[in-house]
């Protein structure tokens, strides 16, 4: 085995406009229920985090992982950065649930990686797009156990606009999101 290249911070600066054209619109070959995942990133003092890179990868509505592209961009992948208020938004389709290698069922979810100044390595997690009752038997939900901690990974559907799923991410301190080791 060769030793891997160590991770380093993305910081200090990267230009949002250069990073990824239309990166906030996730492409899929077929149709699906259009949704927007949006929220804010906060640090350990509760301050919004500007200029973080927020990336997503997910299954399609049938629970399949996209292998292709539309000729210009890969399917299933999103990349945005947070604005000065710490806000991100990804327009995508509702992912389906899917099976793991041992036949276990995964709830509808999106894989998220966060990169920022001050993060020497990426923070990885998964955000659930289903209520707690649906999520509780998911393999990650079981690994977390504590429902209070699990709640940090559940996006809340906007009661006024059901296309919007709101998910705020606190990197450290009270309400700190669960992050996973890959």
């Amino acid at each position, binding site marked *: *085995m*060769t*030793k*891997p*290249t*160590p*991770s*380093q*911070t*993305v*910081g*200090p*600066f*990267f*230009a949002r406009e*250069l990073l990824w054209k239309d990166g906030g619109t996730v492409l899929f070959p077929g149709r699906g229920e259009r949704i927007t995942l949006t929220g804010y990133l906060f*640090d350990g*003092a509760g*301050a919004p*985090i*500007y*200029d973080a890179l927020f*990336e997503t*990868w*997910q*299954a399609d509505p049938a629970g399949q*992982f*996209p*292998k*292709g*592209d539309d*000729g210009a*961009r*890969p399917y*299933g*992948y999103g990349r945005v950065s947070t604005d000065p208020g710490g806000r991100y938004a990804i327009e995508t389709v509702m992912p389906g649930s899917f099976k793991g*290698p*041992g036949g*276990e069922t*995964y709830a509808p*979810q999106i894989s998220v990686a966060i990169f920022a*100044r*001050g*993060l*020497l390595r*990426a923070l990885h997690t*998964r955000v659930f797009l289903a209520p707690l009752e649906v999520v509780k038997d998911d*393999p*990650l939900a079981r*690994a977390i156990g504590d429902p209070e*901690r699990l709640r940090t990974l559940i996006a809340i559907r906007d009661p006024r606009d059901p296309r919007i799923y709101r998910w705020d991410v606190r*990197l*450290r301190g009270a309400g*700190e*999101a*669960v*992050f*996973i*080791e*890959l």
Partner: protein
Amino acid sequence: MPETRTDDVHPPYLYPDYKSTRLRAPSQPLVRVSPSPLEATGPAFPRQFVKDSEADLTTWGRSAPLGEKMILVGRVLDEDGRPVRRSLVEVWQANASGRYPHPVDDHDAPLDPNFLGKGQVLTDDDGRYRIVTIKPGAYPWQNLGSAYAQRLITQMFFPGDPLLAIDPIFQSVPEAGRKRLIAELDLEHGIEGVALGYRWDMVLRGPRATPMGV
């Protein structure tokens, strides 16, 4: 503080000498999960995603950017030394004066209208890439392998840089990993009198175990 794998070459999340980590590093341990198809798969980049011209950062302006031209070659490999094909390698760097063209970089160094500091390339079937650029101060890199778990952002440093000994971001990396962050001079790939050549391979860690059937 979150635990890291014992064989880890990666820096810890919390590294107080790098002040920005103090409010951004998670305080809870990372949760270990069984490998899922989410991390074993990853986005597929079409050839057209990258234009050949994007591998040369020196041709974007009306004239050549300021600074010392250089050519960087290398391979993207997995931990078993196999090439990672069609891996997206992105580079993002400061200009020769150490300034980034970003609205919040207000430090007192000139912008260079002929240098955007952004490039990208897809690796070929041997995992090889080649980038033409100018020598900057610092050097963040991004890399997307074939599995999402391989996603890496790292930095390349130059050999013999005396600042490495006092750079907290470089020093945050465990001793075992530091050598990997430093490029080697590669005279074969330079152009005499025009550009120095450097070689830098990137090794991507795979997911802990690859699920079958995805």
